[in-house]
């Protein structure tokens, strides 16, 4: 379909602007805009149609099953969209005095209380904008904590298992730390021997996802805790997989000192094609003094933003955090109440059911019960029929499903990382399983069908290599060439997570 710029016609307008009967002050000539920006020019009906049409070329949870592993694509309750739009929330300026924001602050406070209970930790900062920023903030807290103890120069290393999400090592670099990788053992746990060899007085801490990105709960978590705490190091919990363990096992009780919670995963948030998210962190009391400002506090029945925290690392984002995200997640939590445990139970049940239905047809690298997700491999399909995880993913589209995450975690070749979440009905899981099984058969019988998939989407398979080699990252108006020529072969980058 056309770009909105290709529908533009000089002189059209999609919205009017009030024009007060007042003089417009002069802008000094050297500061005045010379060439107007070439924004689209369309009447309102055409703008709405354009984006409506775009939406029909997209697939969301509302469209169907979206088992994108590590992303926890659960149902987004519509009441959350309604309440986030209440003028008392949506029209609230973030810099009003606290007395004008008591409802917002109470909500933030209550959200913090629930997060403390779910994580088993003591203090919260709601500020981080997403999990990745939570990670970085957590590592900044590590540094502040050790600096306070005079150990910052000494402790420069962060241990991360090879199953970790890419954000973990990236955060390590951004925080100015060095990375110490650690292996995964034959059962899919962190290799404790390898770990023991690598943790010492230079270690600032660990970053761990538990259950891991393999969907497996680390059976040695208590040993791991002892190793780190024994070495005076701290432990960071990547909360991306918290959906597996709400009310079942708490990071604080596992020994972690800092946890980020991806509100947009465990506590439901419309992912909006990439975001927004929320990445609050929960910390042990010992790390609380370093939390970003402001911190939401309570004095009896009133709530306030506390900026007076001399040991604070500062700010990682504006204001107290992405408030609208808090409204939605708080609403989600209140819809469940203590049944948040049931949420995790069903997420795990759904995943194990799918696993049971699929493990004969695909390779299962670690044959254990899984938690909320599991990772299969298309290794045999590739070896036997030349069919890759990408081909399986693309073919799933033709069956009406969003593909799982592929090529992640990196330790599993031809990985297919499947997370159904608790939101799905058994019929949906069955239909997906049937499709996966049919695809495994097709791989043997008609591999070409898979390699050329998808066949029934608005576009056929796209050439990602070409996009990288000849980057066209904005419309170029008159000079814009209509593309031609046909793609060659596919990149195998992780997709999902």
């Amino acid at each position, binding site marked *: 379909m056309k770009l909105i710029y290709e529908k533009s016609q000089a002189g059209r307008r999609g919205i009017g602007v009030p024009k007060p009967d007042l003089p417009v002050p002069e802008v000094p000539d050297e500061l005045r*805009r010379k060439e107007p920006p070439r924004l689209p020019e369309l009447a309102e009906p055409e703008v709405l149609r354009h984006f409506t049409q775009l939406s029909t070329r997209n697939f969301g949870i509302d469209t169907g099953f979206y088992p994108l592993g590590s992303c926890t694509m659960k149902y987004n309750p519509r009441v959350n969209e309604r309440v986030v739009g209440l003028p008392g929330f949506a029209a609230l300026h973030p810099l009003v005095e606290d007395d004008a924001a008591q409802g917002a602050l109470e909500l933030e406070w209550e959200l913090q209380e629930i997060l403390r209970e779910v994580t088993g930790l003591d203090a919260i900062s709601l500020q981080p904008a997403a999990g990745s920023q939570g990670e970085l903030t957590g590592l900044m807290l590590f540094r502040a904590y050790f600096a306070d103890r005079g150990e910052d120069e000494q402790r420069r290393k962060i241990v991360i298992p090879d199953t970790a999400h890419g954000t973990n090592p990236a955060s390590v670099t951004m925080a100015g730390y060095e990375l110490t990788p650690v292996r995964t053992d034959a059962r899919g746990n962190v290799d404790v021997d390898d770990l023991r060899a690598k943790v010492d007085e230079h270690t600032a801490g660990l970053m761990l996802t538990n259950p891991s990105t393999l969907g497996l709960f680390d059976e040695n978590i208590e040993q791991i805790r002892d190793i780190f705490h024994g070495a005076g190091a701290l432990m960071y919990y990547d909360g991306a997989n918290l959906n597996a363990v709400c009310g079942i096992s708490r990071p604080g009780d596992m020994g972690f000192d800092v946890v980020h919670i991806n509100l947009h995963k465990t506590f439901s948030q419309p992912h909006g094609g990439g975001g927004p998210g929320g990445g609050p962190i929960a910390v042990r009391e010992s790390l609380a003094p370093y939390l970003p400002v402001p911190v939401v506090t309570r004095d009896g029945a009133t709530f306030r933003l506390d900026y007076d925290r001399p040991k604070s690392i500062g700010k990682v984002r504006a204001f107290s955090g992405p408030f609208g995200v808090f409204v939605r997640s708080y609403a989600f939590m209140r819809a469940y109440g203590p049944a948040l445990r049931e949420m995790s139970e069903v997420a795990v049940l759904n995943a194990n059911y799918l696993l049971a239905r699929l493990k004969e047809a695909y390779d299962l690298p670690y044959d254990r019960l899984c938690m909320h997700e599991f990772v299969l491999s298309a290794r045999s399909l590739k070896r036997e029929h030349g069919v890759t995880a990408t081909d399986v993913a693309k073919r799933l589209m033709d069956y009406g499903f969003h593909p799982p995450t592929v090529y992640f975690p990196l330790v599993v070749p031809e990985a297919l990382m499947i997370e159904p979440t608790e939101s799905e009905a058994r019929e949906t899981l069955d239909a997906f399983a049937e499709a996966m099984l049919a695809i495994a058969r097709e791989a043997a019988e008609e591999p070409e069908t898979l390699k050329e998939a998808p066949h029934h989407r608005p576009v056929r398979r796209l050439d990602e290599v070409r996009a990288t080699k000849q980057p066209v990252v904005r419309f170029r108006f008159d000079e814009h060439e209509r593309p031609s020529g046909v793609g060659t072969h596919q990149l195998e980058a992780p997709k999902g997570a």
Partner: protein
Amino acid sequence: MSFLSLTDADREAMLAAIGVSSIDELFRDVPAGVRFERELDVPPALTESELQRHLEELAAKNVVDEVCFLGAGIYDHYVPAVVDAVLQRGELLTAYTPYQPEMSQGVLQAIFEYQTAICELTGMDVSNASGYDGTTVAADACFVAKHATGRTRVVVTEATNPQVRQVVKTYAPGFGLEVVEVPHDGGTTDPDRVRAAAEGAAAVIFQQPNFFGCLEPAPDLAAAANDAGALPIAHVDPISLGVLEAPGAYGCALAIGEGQSAGNAMSYGGPHYGFLAARSDYIRRLPGRIVGETVDLEGKRGFVLTLQTREQHIRREKATSNITTNQTLLALAGLVHLSLLGPQGLAELGETCMALAGYARQSLADAGLEPLFPDKATFKEFAVRTGRDARLAVTAARAHGIYPGYPLGRDYPGLDDALLVAVTEKRTVGEIDRLVEALSR
């Protein structure tokens, strides 16, 4: 629980298929020592009607009926209804990062269109798909500049939004960067001071209009940075860019900003989006998602995430950033708003804000509230002296249903009597007259 589909019969059949006898057994890998054995101590579950009511009660405890002259980075602009209608399309609302492009042409094309709009606004060649907000994109820009120049100091003008400066300072140690601030002179920044500070620096960040609402001599600031081999980075308000020159037109290397004023509700500070655009030189150093054009098997145009070797999921510790979840939905809101406005609408919107702000500034001056920086041109925001602690002026005005602005003393010691007043197109002459009355009482 109405979000869950599994019936008791489903659960039993599924457990049987798995080969376990209870849900508890699914958790057998969780060591006993770390199991949570009691019920979660969280407030009880609410049905939807109870939930809505509870949230309505919370919302009612916030005060949103005072006429808003607060700005300081977040502005009370009108959000068109079409924006909400588009954002509520489930196919866009409930999708995630478009890793699988054939499932995601809607989002991908929208981001491509957004990138184009940001490039057009800022006069740049490339834009990412959004950053968290207007503060974090400043830290991102520093990271780009550090690696592009190999230098370890960044300069930020004191007239830049204090929260932007704070975030840059919080990130800087991890990046191995030192942060230097250049003070303002009477409300704007002296290019010579910038030139001096920029020597050996990776970047110079300044804001246009600056935090005081004043128009900086932006081309001169950019030139000063360029002279010193530092990357000039302009922090701009998208709503101003129909009227004010594009950073690309006066030599900036990067342009960043808070997108809230285009398309997003104030929402107590978020979620919003930060935008980040650059000259093409920096394309492979940019953080975050970038969408590119390509073709499918049959030669048909399509869009994909591109240049992913910059990103954490491929480059891990060598990535240009750790960002993954971003602010696409809010950026989409920005695109829709800008598409409705078009160039003409954007210019008119800027002019309306200027006209109303000009009227407010003049009326306040007439009533004895002098501008803090009387000779400086301003856009939609300006500072006045209230003749007392500005916080008292806020309290006094609020008693009359007016939230008159932001006390600059919060961030600028010595400016305790100064109030920063923002005027958007939503304000009326009548409301401004009430503001003047409330503040001059």
